[in-house]
Structure formats: structure tokens, C-alpha cells
């Protein structure tokens, strides 16, 4: 076994050594691994299922009418009844087969309302988090990677960070409310308001991670090998950033939905003609005793969505990190040491 006592073999002999082929179908083994991890973490699996369920439903709500219209001439919808359709049914009916979540005080089907709001909320969650991720991530990357004091880049870095600090010094919700009230009611106005308060968190997070990665010995080793700074940035820094950012992003989608709904609930966000969870609440809150299903349905929708993303985010850490990936999937048949 030991090679320690054997002198190194001549290079000439070694050049004929067979090169092992790349592992066949790496994506397939990754998929299996992914499944193993999900099975080992029931909570992540729950989160994953919830996120898939919610996303697919939202997709269908939007896409089914769009597809069926040109095909059939009239739009089909997976909503059982039109949303926010006042007076369509008797008011405040308890949940039944016809109306799984009952009807509200305007006589509209609560299930349809909740379902119709899903794409709006989910879309906003993804858009705000996504734009924040890209914008904040890039700024954080710049601020973290080129932060040598006394240079132009150092000045830029400092500027970015001070600007971020200014935004972070306001309470998020209050600032978002203020901006939203200034911009006036509207779907995009309140989205912008949340976005403006959201990106600084990503700058902070990214910069912190970059600063930590930048001083790792493997980055110094790459530099010592003559690897260019740009390549170090992409090969080492960005690659190691993906996991913390993805985790934060997936948990953040839920938080954005909550913030956005709060703005709508207070009445400075989405106009009441658009189905949105926070928007439905002001009308329903008086019914909490007489027709509690209205309030509970909306609450449950928010809860389930946020929970799904949080659970998934927690598990993503394990899924994306090759180190814990193996441990999670390790069974008694773990691979042995490869050293000879």
C-alpha cells in the first residue's frame, strides 16, 4: 500500500497512465444525491414540495388562460370562479364543496381570491429578491473584492458601503411605507418601494462573504500560481458566494411577500381592484368572528408560502455545499479513502 518508501516514479512511465474518463452523467448522480438529501431531511422535503406546489399553481393561474384563449377562443382559468367578483354568491357562506374557503362579505369566492393573488405575490417576491440579489450582489462584490484603501477602487468601495449603511439605518418597513406613500398606489410603485429598501442587505451579505473568501489560503495559492484577479474572482470568489446567496435569496422571497402584503394591507400599496393577499385583509378583518374562514384562508396562504421558502432555504445550505452534501448522503457504504 505505502508509496512513502518507494521513490517517485519517473515521469516517462507516468505519461502512459490511463486518464480516468469524467464521471458519466454527472447530472444524474447529482439528481440522485439531491433526492437522497431531501429524503434525509424531511423538513427540506416539505419545503421543496410546498415551493414546487405554490410555484406550479401560480404558473397555471397565469398561463392557462393565456394558452386557452387562442386555442379555444375563450380563456379557461383554473380559478373556480372569477376573482373579486362581488355579488356572485350569497355573502359569508361557510366553507363547502362548492366554496372550499367559503365566501366573503362581498359574496365572492374566497378560494378564487386567494388563488388569483398567488401569482402577484409570488412574482413580486421573486422580482424584488431577484433584482436585489443581482444589484446588491454586484455592488457587494465590487465593494468587497476591490477594497484596498487609498485607491480609486477603495474609494468606490467605501462609497458603496456608506450608501448601504444609510439605507440600512432606516427601519425597512417604515422606509418602504414612506416611499410607497410618496409614489402613490399601484402594483409597481409599491414593488419599487420594497426594492429600494431591499438591496442593501445583499450588499452587506455579499461583501462580508467576499472579504472572508478573499483571505482563504486557496485564493492566495491561486494568486501564487499566477492566476489573474478576474479569474480568481469568478473561479473562487463567485463560486463560493453562490451557496450563501442562494440560501438567503430563497428565505428572502417569503420575507418580501410579507413586507409587500403589509404595505398593501395598510392601504398605500396595490389598489384594491387587484387581488393581493395583503389587499384582501382590510375587507376581511371585521369578519374574524363572524366569518373567520376568510381571514384564515389568506393567512394560511401567506404562511404556507413563506414556510415553504424558509424550509427550502435551510436545506439548500446542505444541498449546495459539497462538504455537507456527502455527509448527508453518507450511509454505511461511504466511499473509502482514495490515498494509496
Amino acid at each position, binding site marked *: 500500500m*505505502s*508509496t*512513502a*518508501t518507494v*521513490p*517517485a*516514479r*519517473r*515521469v516517462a512511465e*507516468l*505519461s502512459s*497512465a*490511463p*486518464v*480516468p474518463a*469524467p*464521471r458519466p452523467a*454527472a447530472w444524474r448522480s447529482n439528481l440522485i444525491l439531491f433526492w437522497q438529501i431531501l429524503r434525509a431531511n424531511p423538513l427540506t422535503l416539505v419545503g421543496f414540495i410546498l415551493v414546487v406546489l405554490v410555484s406550479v399553481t401560480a404558473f397555471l393561474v397565469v398561463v392557462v388562460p393565456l394558452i386557452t384563449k387562442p386555442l379555444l377562443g375563450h380563456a379557461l382559468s383554473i380559478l373556480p370562479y372569477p376573482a373579486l367578483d362581488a355579488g356572485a354568491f350569497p355573502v359569508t357562506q361557510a366553507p363547502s364543496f362548492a366554496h372550499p374557503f367559503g365566501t366573503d362579505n362581498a359574496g365572492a369566492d374566497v378560494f378564487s381570491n386567494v388563488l388569483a393573488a398567488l401569482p402577484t405575490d409570488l412574482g413580486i417576491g421573486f422580482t424584488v429578491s431577484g433584482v436585489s440579489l443581482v444589484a446588491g450582489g454586484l455592488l457587494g462584490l465590487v465593494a468587497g473584492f476591490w477594497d484596498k484603501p487609498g485607491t480609486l477602487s477603495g474609494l468606490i468601495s467605501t462609497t458603496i458601503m456608506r450608501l448601504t449603511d444609510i439605507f440600512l439605518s432606516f427601519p425597512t418597513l417604515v422606509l418602504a411605507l414612506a416611499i410607497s406613500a410618496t409614489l402613490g398606489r399601484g402594483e409597481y410603485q409599491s414593488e419599487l418601494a420594497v426594492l429600494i429598501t431591499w438591496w442593501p442587505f445583499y450588499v452587506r451579505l455579499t461583501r462580508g462573504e467576499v472579504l472572508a473568501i478573499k483571505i*482563504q*489560503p*486557496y485564493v*492566495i*495559492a*491561486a*494568486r*501564487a*500560481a*499566477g*492566476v*489573474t484577479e478576474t*479569474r480568481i474572482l469568478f*473561479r*473562487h470568489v463567485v*463560486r*463560493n458566494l453562490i451557496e450563501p446567496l442562494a440560501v438567503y435569496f430563497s428565505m428572502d422571497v417569503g420575507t418580501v411577500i410579507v413586507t409587500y402584503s403589509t404595505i398593501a394591507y395598510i392601504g398605500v400599496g396595490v389598489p384594491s381592484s387587484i387581488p393581493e393577499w395583503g389587499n384582501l385583509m382590510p375587507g376581511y378583518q371585521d369578519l374574524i368572528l363572524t366569518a373567520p374562514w376568510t381571514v384564515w384562508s389568506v393567512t394560511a396562504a401567506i404562511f404556507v408560502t413563506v414556510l415553504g421558502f424558509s424550509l427550502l432555504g435551510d436545506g439548500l445550505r446542505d444541498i449546495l*455545499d*459539497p*462538504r455537507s452534501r*456527502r455527509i448527508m448522503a453518507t450511509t454505511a457504504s461511504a*466511499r473509502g*479513502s*482514495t*490515498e*494509496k
Partner: protein
Amino acid sequence: MSVAPPLVQVQDVQKYFPLTRSLTDTIRRHAKLAIRAVDGVSLEVRSGETLGLIGESGSGKTTLGWLVARLHEPTGGRILFDGQDVAHLQGKALRAWRRNIQVVFQDPVGSLDPRMRVWEIVTEPIHAQEPGLRKAELRRRAAELLPTVGLVPDCLDQYPHEFSGGGRQRLSLARALSLRPKLVVLDEPTSALDVAVQAQILNRLVALQSEFGFAYLLITHNVSAVKYVADRVAVLYLGKLAEVGTVREVLERPTHPYTKALLAALPVPDVRRRRARFRISGEIPTLIRPPPGCRFATRCPFVIDRCRVEEPLLRPTPRDPGHLVACHRLEEVIDIAPETLLVMEGSAGMRTALPSGAVAATT
């Protein structure tokens, strides 16, 4: 002496790390404080030889190694590599020059990117120096490299965390050797490893050197590793060179009081030599305001007034012109064996705290 010109010549190199100053300091124009990690060191490494750098934490040995590898830019002095001054190389020229010299780091976990596969890690320097090589070619090169460090080529697609500490250090070594550099800086390569694994890696290092003729700069606090791998040894204390010489000279006839103290303090796995040990008292002074004169004067049992004022220069010992020692009392201390330092236990401070008679003598 040696006919071949030295591969690396370090000439009076300094590296100061400025301390961050507060705004008021800047306004008041306070003197700029700095950590003097390396403070005027001259050394050379010859082609194909191993120079061991030993010293405790704060001695500047790692900084010196990083200076030679140009991971730091020196504050002062020159670093000649094959006769070319590389101290202030920048940009493209620096990157191209880097193929001559590679580094193996201490931390077997941190020095390998956890998200890269073995073949990517090992061929990173090749890719950096010869961009445009295809993946298949890089994998072929990686598969060639792994056996030279004692790993099987089947592990090309594994991640570093699947290896033990020794295995990771082999990967680091493979990466460092991938470009066939002229000099490899080994920064505490075995400090994080167990003795059994350490022996494997040290054997491997020596075998690779005789096969490929690399020069090594071995930075470590582990004297037994230096003893096995090094041809010559330099002892650093607080950013200054205390002693340089061939490994046998320095380890068997340590001359500088600090070297004697260091060797005497080593725990030896030999029960028969379980003895009262020499103990140099006192803490290692700070590098911000190092003591004037000899850096070791605060802890030296042989200290005289001159040591506290005048800085000793490196002088050859009478026995061997290649054995240089920076001590004013060189001629007087040269024949004192480390073991006999015992009687001289307790300069300054330490003794006052000890009950009378309770000198380090036990067992």
C-alpha cells in the same frame, strides 16, 4: 563553497505592516507605527537545496517565505531570483514569473477550494500559465501528477473534503509541483498532520527533490522536520536572523543562545533524556517596538550591557565560515551545550516568582 550562483538571494529585506491609525493620529502626525515582521534579513537559497527556516510565532518566518514567493511586496531590500530583482515586479511580468516558484500552505483545509474538483485544483497553475488548454489535456496532466505525490489518478473528480489531512497536503503538493517550479516554498507543510502522516509527506518531499531537483524553502517550527529535509538552516527571532548554517552545524552545534534555548526546549520522545530542562524565561516581545540592540537580549541568559544597545551582526564561527551567528558573545557561548544551560536557569523576572530552590529541576 558552492560554484553555482544562488537561485534566490534575499538582500537586507524588510517588511513592515503599518498599523491602522485613528483619524486623530493622522491629524496629530503621530509616528507611523508598524509591525516589523521582517527587519533586515539576508539569505540565499541555492538551486536544488533545501533551506529550513525555523522560528517561533512572530519570528517572521512565514512573512519571509511570502516575500520570497512575492505574495508580499517588501518594504525595503532586494530579492534576486536567478539574478533578476523580483521585489517590485507587477502585473503580467509578475504572473509570468510565478511559474518559477510555488507555495504549499499549512492549512490543509483552507488551501483547497472546497468547490473545486481534484483535477481543477491540481491544474490551476497550469491553466494560469498556459491558458487555452482543453479540459481533456488538463485532466491528463492531473492524472500524471497525482501518482508523483502518492495519490491514485481515480480521484480526479473528487472534492478535497473527501481526503484526509495528509491526502489534502498531497494535493497541495501536486498543485505546487504542476509547473515544475525551481523553488517550492513549504509553509509549515506538516504542522497540521499526525506524526505517522508527517513521515510519509517528508519522505515524499525528499524523494521529489532528488527526482526533479526543486529547491525548497521549508518554513516550520518543527525542528525534526527541518533536520530531515533541510540542507541548511536559518533561525529567525523577531524578524532578524539569529543563525545560519548547514543543518548538522546548527542542530548539533547550536551557537546562538536562542538556538540553544529552542533546541533545549524541544520535548524529546526519549525517557532516558527526561531531565530538567533549560527554560528561557519571559515572553516573546512585541514586534511593534522591538527591543533595541539584540532582539533576544530580554530573554538571553548570557546578556551583557552591550547586547541591549548594539545590534549584533552575523559573523562566521571560527569552526565553519558558512556558519553565521548574530551574537556579540559568539566566542564565549560557542562551546556551551544546550543541556548545560540548565544551571543558568532564570534570568530576570522568573526567579522572583519562584520559591527559592525551585528551579526547573524535576525528575
